[in-house]
């Protein structure tokens, strides 16, 4: 409750101070890349769902699928487009089983907001810009 109200205060502040939001975004972006790229193969979509995809970045999928594997996964589990790469979603499903929140992978992910690509998903999350588009 306390955390949520803190976020809503920060969100209101970010909405009323767009200039400060841009500066924060520029500050956090390199930090985010530095941490998430080597660890999770982050592609900076700006609407991070690593938590729900077994800590594997779904944007590494050549089709940028955010809701699970396509029907073209090879029988050995490799990608249909890049045959020597293990399917992102095969890895995501395997890893998500090890997580305490393993059912998060079943959540339906909304369409991406491509205008947020390349921006800090942390700042976006606080600003309410990381929820994607649609119902």
């Amino acid at each position, binding site marked *: 409750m306390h955390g949520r109200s803190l976020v809503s205060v920060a969100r209101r502040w970010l909405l009323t101070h767009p200039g400060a939001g841009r500066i924060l975004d520029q500050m956090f972006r390199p930090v985010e890349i530095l941490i998430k790229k080597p660890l999770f193969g982050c592609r900076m979509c700006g609407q991070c769902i690593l938590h729900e995809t077994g800590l594997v970045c779904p944007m590494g999928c*050549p*089709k*940028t*699928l*955010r*809701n*699970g*594997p*396509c*029907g*073209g*996964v*090879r*029988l*050995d*589990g490799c990608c*249909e*487009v890049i045959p020597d790469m293990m*399917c992102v*979603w*095969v890895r995501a*499903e*395997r890893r998500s089983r090890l997580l305490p929140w393993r059912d998060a*992978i*079943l959540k*339906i*992910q*909304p*369409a*991406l907001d*491509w205008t947020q690509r390349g921006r800090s998903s942390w700042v976006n999350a606080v600003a309410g810009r990381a929820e994607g*588009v*649609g*119902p």
Partner: protein
Amino acid sequence: MIQSLTPGAAPGRSPSLKGLPSTRRLEEAFRSGRRVLTCEIAAGDSPDPAGLLERAATVRHHVDAVNLPDNTSGRVHLSGLAAAAIVAGAGIEPILHVTCRDINRIGLQSHLLGAAALGVRNLLCLTGDHVVHGDHPESKPVFDLDSLQLLRLVGTLRSGRYLSGRAVEPAPDLFPGTTENPFAPPHDFRPLRLRKKIEAGARFVQTQIVFNVPRFKAFMARVCDLGIDRQAPILAGVAPPRSARSARYMRDRIPGMDVPEALVKRMEGVAPARAEEEGLRIAVEILDEINGIPGIAGFHLMPICWEEAVPEVVRRAGLRRESETMPAIEAGGAAYPEVSSAPIRERCT
């Protein structure tokens, strides 16, 4: 809803540009409780619709609806929407494949509206094959949405809104379906992904071609455990291999396809002249074997470049009685006069 889409209902529409009435025959077939049969035919790569109508005529009296693919394997074909409208004009129930490969959310919404305007109600919402498998591997793959987001998008339109929130008047009456591949890894996740797709709005399911029957049985057992078969009818994909070459092609070149070695050996073991007969037998054997699996509502036939096999497979497997053939409707005619004058038309009506 249907009434509002029938010719003359839309205000301001030119009386000479008659829309086609969309029909609910596929949904009604699912509701009837009998085995539903659908069949995928090639849209063709010619601007002349004669070949398309000929293929549709070959199968029309043996199935409930005909699938029109969207640039299969990323190879350029006749537009699926055009093909579906032509087929609908001939009184055949179409199922239009809609994929996310070539167009973004703007194009998709306009495409879906166009489908409703042309009387094409049934949609198969797919992610789409990647462009690398097609004849333009250098092109830009779009994938703005994925198949689940596309299903949700159809739901949004059905509820009378564009994705932007703007109103659609009247809301298009669409019947979205989806597909699932029980044979591609991660196998344990496939039934859950199918459930996710149904939650996203899928109303029917057509599976990838079944050659590996044990794997399919395991998949269906899990699907029934999850109660998915009671939420949406599931049609099992079946295809007769036409030759040993075609079996090898499916095994090696179509990603996610599980063609057991024994089946390829069996096709290679017969003389080329007898290969088609062997392929028909294989399809009928598979149909017999999966017919009894709980949770199956019917079959989706995918005769790859071999539509002539469909009547024979349906007859041999005993899947159709005379009373179950697709009822003819007074639909097209006027909308496509140039098609109706072709001799092929006689076989279509």
